[in-house]
């Protein structure tokens, strides 16, 4: 019986630490995608400015409150604009940005295809 209790305690301990590890992973993932507005070359994750320290705390609190990654991004873009995200979200201001590489690819592909067809002829 004692042995089972021991196993149970260990199991519980490991599940909780795993949960915590997931939270920290998510926290780091989010803060790496946030631009520090004070020291603009750095992410919030890398920065130690007062603003970045507070923002890390806010992200941690929001994760504890049960916010998802997207909800946290929405919360922050509402306050600081899209600029705070390194990976811009898909919206009407960024359609051009997202589709441009695809357009260039299709356009380039079309030119190459045309050349090939011409050579074959």
């Amino acid at each position, binding site marked *: 019986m004692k042995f089972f209790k021991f196993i149970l305690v260990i199991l519980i301990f490991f599940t909780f630490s795993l949960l915590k590890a997931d939270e920290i992973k998510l926290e780091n993932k989010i803060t790496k995608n946030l631009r520090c*507005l004070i020291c*603009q070359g750095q992410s919030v994750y890398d920065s130690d400015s007062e603003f970045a320290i507070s923002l890390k*705390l*806010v992200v941690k609190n929001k994760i504890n409150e049960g916010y998802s990654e997207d909800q946290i991004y929405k919360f922050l873009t509402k*306050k*600081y604009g899209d*600029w705070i995200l390194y990976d811009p979200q898909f919206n009407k201001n960024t359609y051009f940005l997202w589709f441009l590489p695809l357009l260039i690819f299709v356009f380039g592909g079309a030119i190459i295809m045309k050349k090939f067809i011409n050579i074959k002829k």
Partner: protein
Amino acid sequence: MTNKIIYFLFVIFFLFIFIIFYKGLNNSNLYTPNTEIKSIPKLTYESLLKKSSLNSKDIFNKNRFYLLNIWASWCVPCRDEHPFLISLNKNENIKIIGLNYKDNINNAKNFLNELGNPYSTILLDTDGTKAIEWGAYGVPETFLIYENKIIKRYIGPLNSELLDEIKIYIK
């Protein structure tokens, strides 16, 4: 004919790039966040001078102008703007609320003893999370509030021109 078209496209391409870079030269590389927050965030604050917690509702009444000033005793520009806040405090149309940002309480009290206290209430933000709810990103920063809405925000210290602007708003 094709050569001419290619030459023409090249010229247009370089012109396009030139215009973009030229415009970029004049842009300030200091970013001011374009925030969408219009109404004040609903939060609970601790007070610096009184031992009580306050809600946004208790602090900001409608039909009155409020100036929320984020400050700290360690912030040098806050010292520069302090005389302007004291002179604005003489105006009866506006109430000045302080949000003490990441500060040592004793230092904050000394700062007020030394330079005077223009604030009707001083709220505490010991970890900086409340300033983020306001969409602020440093000290000093000032928000002009009317009817629970933010009508103007000033990043950086206030000066005599901005003070005149605020006075025009609250007339």
